[in-house]
């Protein structure tokens, strides 16, 4: 039990609970809340010393954010 693992679990719990029940219920708030468990998962991967997993996860996380932003933009025109 090193500190990275515990901190990652705390962020993962907070983020997934809040992202399941967003308070002002719209897509923007839910997308911002979804970033918190992403960083928590990165900390958990860090505690197992997986460098290649960290690279891949960082790239895929940014790419999925971009795709979700395009989908929300198309669904609700600004």
């Amino acid at each position, binding site marked *: 039990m090193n500190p990275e693992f515990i901190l990652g679990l705390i962020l993962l719990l907070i983020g997934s609970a809040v992202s399941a029940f967003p308070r002002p219920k719209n897509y923007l708030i839910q997308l911002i809340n979804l970033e*918190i468990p992403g960083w928590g998962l990165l900390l958990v991967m*860090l505690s197992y010393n997986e460098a290649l997993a960290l690279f891949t996860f960082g790239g895929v996380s940014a790419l999925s*954010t971009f795709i979700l*932003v395009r989908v*929300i933009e198309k669904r609700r025109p600004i």
Partner: protein
Amino acid sequence: MDSLLVVIFGFIAVIGALTTAFNREPYIKLISMSMMIGGIFPFIVDRGFLDVAAATAVIAPISTIFILLICRKGEP
């Protein structure tokens, strides 16, 4: 890493995550998310993954800028 540093950076990350989770305005949520990321970075560097830290430091603001594209202009 020293235990004082673990406590301080963990405090910054947790308080940033709580403010991001329970505030209702999008801009305050984004500023607090930047604070949470700042608390996480020393843990990555302390493990010795300097290349991962450099790549993540470039990727994280790009992700925030993507989210800013759908923050409406007049909305606080």
